[in-house]
């Protein structure tokens, strides 16, 4: 059994582009301070950043929880928002419902969820339309050490 070492939760505000990226930034500093190797750190931060951005862009509010165990890093991103009607479609590369405004800001290439999946060793999405979305990602520490 994996032993839980550390659990930290961060609030994410929907539509707040000024603060967007701060949560994944904080996670990066935390992992750096804990001496997590660069490869795993990069994977965690990509997943955290894309997950955070999706909450900022599409949801009202959300929480990102990082759970560090002796063998992996788990990210749980839960939001209150519109939910995803077709998860299979959302996971396709290039699929995006981002507005023109978001695209102008350099977001909405439809690569967020695919990249999160690619950078995780386990990846799961659950969603209920009208309520919200829950994303779970596990990055194993020894897999790339």
């Amino acid at each position, binding site marked *: 059994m994996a032993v839980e*070492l*550390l659990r930290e939760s961060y609030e994410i505000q929907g539509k707040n582009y000024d603060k967007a*990226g*701060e949560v*994944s*930034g904080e996670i*990066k*500093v935390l992992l*750096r*301070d*804990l*001496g997590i190797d*660069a490869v795993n*750190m*990069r994977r965690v*931060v990509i997943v955290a*950043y894309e997950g955070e951005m999706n909450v900022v862009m599409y949801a009202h509010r959300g929480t990102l929880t990082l759970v*560090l165990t*002796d063998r992996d890093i788990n990210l749980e991103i839960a939001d209150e928002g519109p939910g995803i009607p077709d998860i299979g479609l959302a996971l396709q590369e290039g699929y995006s419902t981002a507005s023109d405004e978001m695209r102008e800001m*350099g977001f909405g290439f439809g690569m967020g969820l695919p990249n999160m999946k690619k950078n995780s060793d386990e990846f799961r999405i659950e969603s209920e339309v009208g309520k919200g979305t829950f994303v779970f990602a596990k990055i194993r*520490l020894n897999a790339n050490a």
Partner: protein
Amino acid sequence: MPELKHGFKISTEKCQGRMPCMRACPTHAIRVKNGKARLIPELCIDCGSCLGVCPSGAISATTVPFAELDRFKFKVAVASPALFAQFAIKETPACVARALLDLGFDAVWEYSVDIELIDRAITDCVKKWPGPFPLISNSCPVIVRLVQVAYPSMVEQLIPVEAPREIAGRELKRRYSLELGLQPEEIGAIYITPCQAKTISILQPAEEEKSYLDGAVGISEIYNDVLQKIRKTTNAEGSPKSKFGIGELFHWGTPEGEFPKLSREHYLPLTGLTDVIKVFDDIEKGKIRNIEFLECHACPGGCIGGNLTVENLYVARSKNLHLVASMSRPSPEFEKEVERRYAVEDFSLRRPLKPRIIEGEVVNLLERVKRRKRADELLKGLPLLNCGLCGAPTCKNHAEDAAAARADLSDCVFLSRDRINFLREIYKK
């Protein structure tokens, strides 16, 4: 890991424990215990921020004494373009080069060819790079060390292209050993450096390879001698025999290179460690997008503001602008030489750069997490004034030191009256 060499020494004898160095250090690598400053070598990035602020003159830069260079049969100077911005307008790069010869160098390398070559190599590398972006320039050794120490996940974004001075060292050894029939070891490739960080990068390159250069001499170390030689020969016949014009000694970009072939909106030049750190923090947060290349120099104003330069930054900058403005277009010979060398030389970094291993982090993950939790807990009991009287630059540093058993929490004056008495003893006049 081999023992780290550093760009400066703190003299325990002269140190009076006044702490400006500790407060100035951007990586929090200095502690002042028992009234004496002490360095945590793994955290030091050779930036020299501590050098100028010591009120007791206890910190000195390490450079190679000029006399030590006599062991070489043939000595070649590779002059940082910052050198030429140190003198008056009428003292042209050619005059300065002449003075270097009079000082005992056997040749002055036409360094701008190498700078141009690296400009091209960087432009090509940026175009072919699959990501992650932005790539970060590596010619400033302090920037490389900053990334290795404080931004380990960005190490692979340091551009894998050699610094121009290294390429100069390699080529000059090749050329002169052919021309003169000497062994490469008999030829001294000496960099005339604007900062002590480059001296260190030559003694101990960050990628753990051997440098192509043999040493460095600080601009400030030879400045007076160069000035004297220039004055002596102003009336004598002009410049050194050079097959090229001034363009070969002095590059028209900002000192140490600018990369005009990259489109403006994807390229960001940054100088000054404080600003560089701000931008790196934004990169970590994922805030910097659409930038392909960051050219970073730790000294404000770039290498002409280096801590071994003599002229003040603004005067040097104006001289530099003047030199750039007065330059003619690069000569056909120059262009031909660049073409020739670009076709045959490999400019890629010989070994990948890696994050620096920090001694305190060698313990296992569980212990690291415990320390962090302990540090967070201990921090709650500290005043958050960052007064430094405990000997650490910030309360956070002190909590971390205490959590790792490197310091006693009660060194905080808020927690112990004894500490004040102890300090009173130490700082007694």
